[in-house]
């Protein structure tokens, strides 16, 4: 009996955390579910009764139908997956390459590590503002300045005697406008990859340090090439870190918002969170139905990923 009570109190200590998270999850989610089945808009002069949530405005599956028939919806899902998928592939590939590269000791290794990890700590809003304005702006950013520099250079070459006519056939380079076109997704992928590659590098590097060196030496003695050492020893060793990098990033990037907002303000490629935000400017019912879809999508990804690595986490 004494033993029981001795263990009960310590176990009770997790309840505040559990209750807080339960409230945090269930209350807003329950409300979203409720709003998704009623007519609820912020402004409607003709039907003022729709501007406050009430069970009398029941709409059934209507909001879901509305969302389904919205052409932006599938585009947004597609964009969400495209953006997350591209970032995952790029960060993992760059991450492995850079981690293998800097894993050997060389002069200034510590400094290179510090330089490399820095982007990870930059506030997402600053990241986006910095890239879209100062680097990618087609006129005033580095992109614009570089391209107009190249164009001016070619312009100059045209006045060269003899060779000039050859350069006059040369087309002018056009800067890419990332702000409000299809290209906005690429800008987002670029800036997030810049920010999260360091994270992948850091984790892969840590993992590489525990790689079995004897096995490697044996492979070298057997005449294994660098590539086959990497392919058959290093890559399998990185299996678990790769799955963890993928999971953590999927959690963060499925809800990407600030970057999309800052890059295109919705004029370019929207992802699911952005579409929800847009609906929420007036049509709460539709925003909530889209939200429920986002939750389902996140759950599909989450179940898939947790299954994949759940075991390795708990060992």
């Amino acid at each position, binding site marked *: 009996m004494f033993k029981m009570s001795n263990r009960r109190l310590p*176990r009770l200590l997790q309840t505040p*955390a559990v209750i807080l998270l339960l409230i945090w999850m269930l209350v807003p989610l329950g409300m979203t579910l409720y709003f998704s089945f009623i007519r609820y808009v912020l402004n409607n002069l003709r039907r003022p009764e729709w501007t406050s949530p009430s069970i009398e405005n029941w709409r059934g599956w209507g909001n879901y139908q509305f969302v389904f028939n919205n052409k932006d919806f599938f585009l947004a899902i597609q964009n969400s997956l495209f953006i997350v998928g591209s970032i995952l592939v790029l960060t993992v590939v760059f991450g492995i390459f850079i981690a293998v590269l800097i894993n050997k000791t060389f002069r200034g290794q510590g400094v290179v590590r510090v*330089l490399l990890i*820095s982007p990870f700590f930059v*506030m997402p809003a600053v990241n986006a503002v910095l890239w879209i*304005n100062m680097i990618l702006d087609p006129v005033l950013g580095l992109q614009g300045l570089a391209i107009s520099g190249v164009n001016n250079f070619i312009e100059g070459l045209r006045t060269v005697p003899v060779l000039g006519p050859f350069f006059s056939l040369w087309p002018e380079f056009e800067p890419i406008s990332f702000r409000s076109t299809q290209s906005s997704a690429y800008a987002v992928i670029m800036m997030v990859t810049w920010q999260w*590659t360091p994270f992948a590098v850091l984790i892969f590097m840590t993992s590489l340090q525990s790689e079995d060196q004897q096995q490697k030496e044996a492979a070298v003695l057997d005449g294994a090439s660098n590539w086959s050492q990497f392919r058959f020893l290093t890559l399998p060793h990185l299996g678990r870190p790769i799955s963890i990098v993928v999971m953590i990033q999927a959690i963060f990037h499925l809800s990407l918002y600030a970057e999309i907002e800052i890059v295109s303000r919705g004029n370019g490629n929207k992802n699911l969170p952005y579409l929800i935000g847009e609906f929420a400017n007036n049509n709460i019912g539709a925003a909530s139905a889209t939200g429920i879809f986002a939750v389902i999508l996140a759950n599909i990804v989450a179940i898939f990923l*947790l299954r994949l690595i759940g075991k390795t986490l708990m060992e």
Partner: protein
Amino acid sequence: MAIVSKTSNLVKYGRPILAWSIGLLFFFPIFWMVLTSFKTDADAVKPEHLIWFTPTLDNYFNMTENYDYWRFAKNSVITAIFATIFTLFVGIPAAYAMAFNPSRSTKDILMWMLSTKMLPAAAVLYPMIYLSKGLGLYDTKFLIVTVVSLINLPIAIWMLFTYFKEIPKDIIEAGKMDGVNTFGEIKEILVPLAWGGIASTALLIFIFCWNEAYWTVRLTTIDAATLSKLIEGNRAPEGLFFGRLSAVSTAAVGPIVVLGWFCQKQLVKGLTFGAVK
């Protein structure tokens, strides 16, 4: 033989050169931001002043005037500090319970906690606005601290759990023999023993709280607005204010980047929940 030594020379010099180039390339945008912050707005967009320019500190001196920087910075500091404290306050007992008194459901609870991180914030955006306005909490520091804490609580518990698991159970049990009660156990035995782990968790949570951009932007207008909101509000200066925008951005991320340099090792452990060693 000659060929072998030639390749090894290539590797010998090639690796550091390539590594340094990549390191500098990744750091370049930050370097560029800091450099631009010392230019006047006019110089910042002139190709002839790309590298050569007369440095000025005006952008920093005028930050208060142009952006009201300090008010936002104060809110960021308050939010991050209180959210970190609150997270640890709730997280340490929870992680303690799970690490030293696990039950059959502990694993499921931990997984469930992590899964709350996967709930897309946008899905519950409107209910949060509705609730906070209804309760009169919209745009208050209390609300932002609470929300930011809850977002980071799962990660904090996971990190602490990972650190606590490494402490031998016997040491904690020994305390029990000496008649120390549960809270004494946490305060006098666990916290001093796991101090390093708790500190790195706090550091990382602080960074996450500082950088949080979704809720701090959506649930605030003026009173509780943090630096994320300030930056997002000035997202498109159309090139007119590159200098001053760089200065305020540098001031917003500088302290955190430097803080990050010191906790990069812990970051690996924390964010991979100890699964990568």
